[in-house]
C-alpha cells in the first residue's frame, strides 16, 4: 500500500529535470558511503543498481526513496546534498522500474477482508429487508475512513459498542416491522334509515327499515386490497307461511350469499358474507329475492369491516404461510425466506438450522410462532453473515484467481452502486446465472434508479472532500452572512452536478468543466448571478437574459456568460473546504487540485517545519501572497510549495467562501500562478483549461478513486493494469460515467477473488 502512495507522492514534472541524470552517479555520491556491504546502515545495501536487484529489494528501495523525498536522507550531517531536481529524477527513475514490473506482473485481484456494512449500508439494507422507514444507524459510532472512504474493509472494525448498537437496532427495526398485536380492522356501520335509495325523512324510520322490493345499499370506497366482511342485521316478515329470501350483493348483479330471513322484531338476525375487494368504489347491499307476495325484510343496519388482515403488505409478505402448516414449519419457511435475502443469497444450511432451532424453541415457549420467528430474524440480523459481506462459498479454493459467484457479484455490484443489498431482479438473474450476460443493461438500470443516489451522496463528496463542509466554521466577523442555509446550498450545487453525472449518464468531464450549474437565489446572490443565463448583477448590456433565480429551489443555470463558474473549481463548496476559517489557503487549494483532480499529491511537509511562518510582523510583506513567498524562501519547503502555492494562487480571485473578490486586505488581487511544469496561469479559468487539455490525468485519478470505493481497499501496484484498462474504456466510452462504472465492474479485481496461492500465510 505504501508503494502506490509513494508513486503518487512524487512531485512529478520537475521544472528543470537534469538532462544527464545517472542513477549510479546519484547513489555513489549520496548514498553508497553508508549503504553498502554487510555493515550497510539500516541493513540497506544500495550497491546493485540493475532493475532485477532493485526489484528484489523493493521494500528497501521504496523506503529510501520516501526518506530521500522527505528530506531525511541523506542525513543533514552530510555536506553534499542533492538538489530538489536530482531527488525528483532519482525518484522517477526508481519508480519507473517498479512501474514497468507491475504492468508485467501476474494478475492479483487483491485481498479484501470481509467488509462490515457501514452506517449507510446497514440502514439501507435494513430498510430494504423490512420496509421500515427509520434510520437505525443514527446512534452508531462513525465509521473510520481508510484510503479516503468510509467503506474500507480494513478500517471498518467492530468494537463492542457497535455490536451492542447492532443488537438494539435490529430489535427496534423488528419491533417496528412485526407488530405482534395487529390493530383491529376498520368497520363502518350504517343505520338502515341512511341506506340508499335515500329517504326524504330518515327520522321516520325508528329502528327497522322495510325492504319489500328491489334492494337497500350503501356506497363505500375501498382503498386497500384485502378481505372484507359485509354484514347486516335484519328480520323477516313472512308472506303466507314463507320466510323471505335475501341476498348480499356487490353492485346490482353480483351475489355473494343468500340467506333465509327468520326472526322477529325482538330477535333480529345478523348475517354476513366475506369477499376480497380491490381499491374501487362499491355499492354493497341487500336484495329481497321474492318481492310482491307480502314477504319483506326489516333491516336495522349494514356494516362493512376490513381489510381483515391489517398488517402492512411488507409484513404480510414476510410472514406469508399456510394456515394449515404446523408452527415449526411456518417458522422454518419464514426464516428460510428471510435468511436468503438478509444473507444475500448465501444461505448456509447449518447456520440456518441453528437459527430455526432457536426460533422454534422460543415460539413454543411463548406459544406464538410469530414471536419465535421474530427471535430467529433477530439472530439472522446479528449474524456475521448479515453484518459482513462475506464471500464464502462451497466451491473448492483454486490456486489461481477465480471468478466470484454470480450472487457474490450481484452483492458487490449492488453495494457499489446502491450501498444496499441486491434487489429482486439482480438476485433472480444471479440465481439463474445470467448476471454476467446482462451486466451492462443492469448497470444502466441501476444507475438510473433512485437508489444510485447512494453513489452521489457517498462517493463524490468523500472523494472531493466536500463532507468537510459540514464542520467548516468560517469566521463570523469576516463572513457575517454565512449561515446554515448557505452551507446547505453550497452542498446542493455540487450534489446536483454529481446527480446529473450518475443518473443521466453525463460526461465525467463536467466535474472539471461544465457549461452549466444549479443555483438557488441564495447561492446565485453569493456568486453575483441574477438569472438562468448566468448574467451578473451588473452584467454588460446586450447579453441574452434568462429567468430570474428566485427562492430556495435550485434551477439550472447556463454559464456561457459566466466563465468564473462551471465545474468544481468554481464551486463555493470546494473553494470553502480548501480555506481556513479567516482566510483563503492557496496551499490547500493547490494541494487539493494536485491531489484530488490530478492524482499527484505533493509529498507531506518535512517534519518540524511549520506550515506557514508568520512573517508579517518582521517584514513589510502585506498580502498573504507576499508572506507566503517569503516563507518559501526556505529551501526545505520550496520544491513542493512552489507547486502547491503557485497553483493555489490562481484561485485568489475567490474569497474563503468562494465569492468573487478583487481585493484582499486592501490590496488588489493578483491571481497569477504557475502550473506544474512551469506554465503561467492568470486565474482559475486557466487551471481549468489546463485540466481539460490534460484530462487523462484527471480521468486516471477518478478511476483510481472509484476503484478504491468499489473494492473497499487501497490500490496496490498490481492494480495498475486494471486502472489503465478503466481509463482506456472511459475514453472510448466518450467519458460517460457509465463507461467508467462498467469498466470498473468488469475489471479483474472487482470480478475475481484471490486464489489460494495468493493468500497470506497463517
Amino acid at each position, binding site marked *: 500500500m505504501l508503494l502506490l502512495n509513494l508513486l503518487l507522492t512524487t512531485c512529478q514534472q520537475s521544472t528543470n529535470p537534469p538532462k544527464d541524470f545517472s542513477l549510479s552517479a546519484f547513489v555513489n555520491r549520496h548514498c553508497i558511503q553508508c549503504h553498502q556491504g554487510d555493515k550497510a546502515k539500516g541493513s540497506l545495501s544500495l550497491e546493485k543498481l540493475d532493475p532485477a536487484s532493485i526489484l528484489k529489494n523493493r521494500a528497501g528501495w521504496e523506503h529510501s526513496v520516501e526518506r530521500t523525498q522527505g528530506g531525511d536522507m541523506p542525513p543533514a550531517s552530510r555536506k553534499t546534498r542533492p538538489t530538489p531536481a536530482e531527488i525528483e529524477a532519482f525518484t522517477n527513475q526508481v519508480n519507473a522500474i517498479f512501474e514497468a514490473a507491475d504492468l508485467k506482473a501476474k494478475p492479483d485481484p487483491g485481498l479484501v477482508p470481509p467488509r462490515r456494512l457501514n452506517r449507510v449500508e446497514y440502514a439501507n439494507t435494513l430498510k430494504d429487508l423490512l420496509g421500515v422507514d427509520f434510520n437505525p444507524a443514527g446512534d452508531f459510532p462513525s465509521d473510520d475512513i481508510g484510503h479516503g472512504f468510509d467503506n474500507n474493509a480494513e478500517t471498518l472494525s467492530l468494537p463492542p459498542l*457497535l455490536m451492542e448498537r447492532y443488537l438494539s437496532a435490529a430489535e427496534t427495526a423488528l419491533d417496528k416491522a412485526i407488530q405482534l398485536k395487529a390493530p383491529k380492522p376498520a368497520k363502518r356501520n350504517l343505520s338502515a334509515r341512511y341506506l340508499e335509495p335515500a329517504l326524504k325523512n330518515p327520522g321516520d324510520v325508528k329502528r327497522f327499515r322495510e325492504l319489500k322490493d328491489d334492494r337497500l345499499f350503501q356506497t363505500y370506497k375501498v382503498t386497500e386490497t384485502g378481505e372484507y366482511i359485509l354484514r347486516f342485521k335484519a328480520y323477516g316478515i313472512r308472506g303466507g307461511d314463507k320466510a323471505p329470501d335475501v341476498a348480499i350483493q356487490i353492485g346490482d348483479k353480483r351475489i355473494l350469499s343468500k340467506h333465509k330471513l327468520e326472526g322477529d322484531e325482538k330477535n333480529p338476525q345478523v348475517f354476513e358474507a366475506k369477499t376480497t375487494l380491490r381499491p374501487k368504489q362499491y355499492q354493497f347491499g341487500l336484495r329481497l329475492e321474492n318481492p310482491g307476495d307480502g314477504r319483506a325484510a326489516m333491516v336495522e343496519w349494514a356494516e362493512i369491516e376490513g381489510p381483515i388482515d391489517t398488517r402492512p403488505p411488507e409484513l404480510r409478505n414476510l410472514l406469508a404461510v399456510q394456515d394449515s402448516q404446523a408452527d415449526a414449519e411456518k417458522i422454518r419457511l419464514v426464516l428460510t425466506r428471510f435468511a436468503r435475502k438478509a444473507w444475500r443469497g448465501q444461505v448456509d444450511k447449518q447456520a440456518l438450522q441453528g*437459527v430455526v432451532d432457536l426460533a422454534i424453541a422460543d415460539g413454543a415457549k411463548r406459544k406464538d410462532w410469530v414471536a419465535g420467528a421474530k427471535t430467529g430474524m433477530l439472530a439472522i440480523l446479528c449474524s*456475521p453473515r448479515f453484518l*459482513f459481506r462475506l464471500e464464502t462459498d462451497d466451491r473448492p479454493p483454486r490456486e489461481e484467481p477465480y471468478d466470484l459467484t454470480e450472487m457474490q457479484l450481484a452483492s458487490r455490484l449492488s453495494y457499489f452502486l446502491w450501498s444496499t443489498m441486491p434487489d429482486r431482479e439482480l438476485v433472480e438473474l444471479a440465481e439463474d446465472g445470467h448476471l454476467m450476460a446482462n451486466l451492462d443493461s443492469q448497470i444502466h438500470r441501476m444507475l438510473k434508479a433512485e437508489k444510485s443516489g447512494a453513489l452521489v451522496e457517498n462517493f463524490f463528496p468523500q472523494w472531493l472532500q466536500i463532507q468537510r463542509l459540514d464542520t467548516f466554521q468560517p469566521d463570523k*466577523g469576516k463572513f457575517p452572512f454565512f449561515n446554515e442555509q448557505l452551507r446547505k446550498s453550497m452542498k446542493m450545487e455540487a450534489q446536483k452536478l454529481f446527480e446529473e453525472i450518475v443518473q443521466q449518464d453525463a460526461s465525467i468531464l463536467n466535474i472539471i468543466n461544465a457549461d452549466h450549474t444549479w443555483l438557488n437565489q441564495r447561492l446565485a446572490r453569493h456568486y453575483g448571478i441574477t438569472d438562468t443565463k448566468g448574467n451578473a448583477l451588473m452584467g454588460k448590456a446586450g447579453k441574452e437574459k434568462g429567468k430570474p433565480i428566485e427562492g430556495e429551489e435550485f434551477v439550472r443555470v447556463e454559464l456561457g456568460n459566466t466563465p468564473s463558474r462551471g465545474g468544481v473549481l468554481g464551486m463555493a463548496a470546494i473553494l470553502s473546504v480548501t480555506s481556513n*476559517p479567516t482566510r483563503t489557503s492557496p496551499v490547500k487549494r493547490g494541494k487539493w487540485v494536485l491531489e484530488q483532480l490530478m492524482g499527484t499529491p505533493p509529498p507531506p511537509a518535512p*517534519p518540524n517545519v511549520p506550515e506557514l*511562518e508568520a512573517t508579517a510582523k518582521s517584514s513589510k510583506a502585506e498580502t498573504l501572497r507576499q508572506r507566503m513567498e517569503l516563507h518559501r524562501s526556505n529551501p526545505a519547503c520550496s520544491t513542493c510549495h512552489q507547486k502547491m502555492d503557485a497553483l493555489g494562487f490562481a484561485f485568489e480571485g475567490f474569497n474563503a467562501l468562494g465569492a468573487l473578490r478583487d481585493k484582499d486586505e486592501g490590496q488588489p488581487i493578483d491571481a497569477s500562478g504557475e502550473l506544474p511544469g512551469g506554465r503561467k496561469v492568470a486565474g482559475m479559468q486557466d487551471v481549468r483549461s489546463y485540466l481539460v487539455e490534460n484530462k487523462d490525468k484527471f480521468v486516471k485519478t477518478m478511476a483510481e478513486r472509484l476503484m478504491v470505493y468499489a473494492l473497499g481497499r487501497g490500490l496496490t501496484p498490481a492494480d495498475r493494469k486494471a486502472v489503465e484498462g478503466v481509463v482506456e474504456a472511459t475514453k472510448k466510452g466518450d467519458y460517460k460515467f457509465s463507461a467508467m462504472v462498467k469498466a470498473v465492474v468488469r475489471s479483474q479485481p472487482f470480478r475475481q477473488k484471490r486464489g489460494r496461492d495468493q493468500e497470506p500465510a497463517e
Partner: protein
Amino acid sequence: MAQFNRRLALRGMGATIGLPWLESLARATGETVSAQAGQPPVRLAWLYVPNGVHMPNWRPGAEGKLNDLPVTLKPLESIRNQVSVFTGLAADKARPNGDGPGDHARALSAFLTGCQARKTDGTNISSGISVDQVAAGGLGHMTRLPSLEIGAEAGAMAGNCDSGYSCVYSSTMAWRSSSQPLPKEVNPALVFDRLFGATADESRKDKDRLRRSVLDTVTKDATSLRGKISTGDKRKLDEYLDSVRDIEVRMARAEKLPPPAKPPIDRPKGVPASYAEHLELLTDLLVLAFQTDTTRVATFVLANEGSNRPYPWLQVPEGHHDLSHHGKNASKQEKIAKINLFHSGMLARLGTKLSAVREGEGSLLDHCLIAYGSGNSDGDRHNHDDLPVVLLGGGKLGVEGGRHVVHPKETPITNLWLAMLAKAGLQREKLGDSTGVLKI
C-alpha cells in the same frame, strides 16, 4: 505487548462480583455511600487536548511545592493541593522514528499506548493496547461498564487526516488491542444511555435472556464459520466474536450487580450546538459515571489531534491547528494560550465537581487519578518531549499533590501510566515503551 486476558478476568469474576463497592447509589445530596468496610475504589481517567500548548504559560516556575499556578492552570486554584504538574515526560513513539511526517496522528495514538502507530491510510491499522484498556482489564469486571470512551469530536469524515495516517489515529485515544481502536461516544444522550439506560425491570431481564440466546446462536455459527474462511478473513471474525463475548460478559455481570443508579439529571437532548456546552455536558456525565460507580476507567478526547476548530467566543476565529503553527508570532501564541486556558477550565470543572462529592473519608477526587495533557508539546515544533501533563486527585491514594515534579528528560510518559495503574492495585511491569514506574 502484554495482552490482558479477558477470559481470565471473567473467570475471576465470580469471586469478586458479589462485592460491588456501592450499595445504594448517589443520593440527591450528591453523596456516595460506602457499603463495605473497605476503601472506596480507585477511578482512573485520561483527558487529551490536541496541538500541544503554549508552554511558557503552562510550566510552573520552579520545581517543588506549587505556590503559584502558572497562567494556563489558574482555573485549578481551588483544588491546587490536588494538582501535580509533571515536566520532562516524553512520548518517543510519537516521533517519526523513520516514518516521516504525521506528528498529530502519532501524538494521540502513542499517548496512552507508548507504541509506534503503523503508518497506513487504512490497511493494517496498528498501535498498541492503551493504558485505560489495561486498567479496564483489571478493574472492569467490578462495574457495569468496564470503561467509558468519550470525546467532543467525531472521527474525521474524509481523507487521511495527517500525512498518510488514517484518521483513526488522530481521533482515537483508547486501543483495546494493537489492531482495535475503540471509537469514542460523542453524543451526550448516548453516553447517558450507556451509563443509565439499562433498566432493571422484568422486561429488561426477559430481553437480556433473549439476547443471550440469540448471541449464543450466532456465536456458534461464527465459530464454525471461522474454521471455513481464509486466514486473512479470520481477523475480522475474531473482532466480531470478541465483541459478542464482551456483551455477554457485561450482561452476565449486570445480573449480579445492583440495579443501575437513578441518574440525578435528565437525559441530554443530543449534541449541544455550542462546543463549550458539549464539553461541560460530557464532563458532568463523567463525574456521574464515577460517582455512581458505573465505571472506574475513562478516556476523554476534548478535541481530535490536529483539530482545526476555531474558538470564536474566545475571540479566536482562526483554526486551532493553523494557529498552533505560530512561528513564534506573539499574537498567535496568545490565542493558543486562550484555547489552552479554556480547556483547563474544563479540567477544573471536572476536578471541582469530583471534589464536591464526599466519599469515604474524603472526596471522590481523593480517590480519582485524572491525567490531562497532550502528546505534542509545542504545536509549532511538533516536539514530543517536555509534554504538558498534569495529574489531578489521589489525595487518599498517597499522591502528594500541589507539586511541580521535574523528571529527567526523555522519561517515557508510559512510566506515569504504570504508576497510575499501580495506585489502582494493578502492578504492571511494562506498557509500550515504558522503562519503569514513576513515583507519584
